[in-house]
């Protein structure tokens, strides 16, 4: 009998426009067993989708938008994590 499993994809874009370029990506695949390899660091040089919009066209659902950065006086040039991070999901059927 088929059961639904969640796949999560994290795409970082170059700016808040959902059509802007993907600059970082990660996939966490809940349909894979613990023995199967997940995406690992450094295993690809080309993103799976050029933008979030491209991923949406292929059946991924955006489940979290990033909060836009706020720029406090005196800290305008401070940088940290990648800011434009989108979480997407897809549900797939697995047969056990």
């Amino acid at each position: 009998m088929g059961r639904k499993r969640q796949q999560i994809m994290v795409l970082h874009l170059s700016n808040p426009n959902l059509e802007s370029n993907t600059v970082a990506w990660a996939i966490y695949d809940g349909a894979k067993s613990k023995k199967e390899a997940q995406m690992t660091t450094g295993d690809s040089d080309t993103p799976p989708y050029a933008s979030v919009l491209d991923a949406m066209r292929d059946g991924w659902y955006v489940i979290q938008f990033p909060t836009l950065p706020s720029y406090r006086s005196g800290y305008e040039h401070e940088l940290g994590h990648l800011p434009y991070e989108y979480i997407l999901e897809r549900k797939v059927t697995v047969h056990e």
Partner: protein
Amino acid sequence: MNNTANRHLLTSVQMAEFAVNGFIKLEGLVPQELNEAVHEEQKQYSNATPGHKYWHQSKLIREVFELPHVKGVLDSFVGKAPVYDHSFLHIVPAERHSGQSYHGDSVIDTRPFAFDIQAFYFSHDAPEIMGPTLILPGSHLRKISTFSIGRYKNIIGQRRLAAKAGTIAFLHHGIWHCAQPNYTDQTRYVFKLRLRPGQEQRGLFNTDGYDSPEVAEVIRKGMHTWAGDEARLNQIGAAKFYRYLCGDDRVDFSFEGVLSRMGM
């Protein structure tokens, strides 16, 4: 200003590249005979042997870091009296197919510009499939907390430090990095030595031409695609960092001369 006494010091262009990218990889620093001797010695170590003991147990590894042109590079970063922080012989066994999570070493550093240098010495050839360390050039000045970037898997512009034997890569302590899978049947060794500065890190390299057009070009072109909308801010950070390193607070190679325009 001009610090030219030691011919093994890094040049201004090399230091500008370090300011922009957070690392510099220098090939052929260690003679092959010494590489082979070190490699043979490292084969006696495994992950069951604490890697932090290697530096204290090996005369050969000390010999590597006493080489005049290696010392010259270290002098350029942390001065002539650096403070030992820690070291580790990192070992990736043959056929280990999982990569480490992206991280920054230690904890969030509160020093505005001062930095520790992390030297990664390769005693044997480490091609891409052997799992040399993966780094993100230009990430060294961003504030993250150790594994707070552990969600990331792939980033545009990431680079494996594939190296020939005798190469030493010198990394800013803050650079984002992770160990990589080893798809070969050979064990991969890399020795890391972290040193703290023994003095203020201003004008320690060969400062000839520190404000030259060649240096300006390196820094002005220091826009990293992965930084997206923040690429300009990232570049301004590198320009500030280089100003600190060169010791002249009038130098401004920032995007649109922001440092001068905004009175920084």
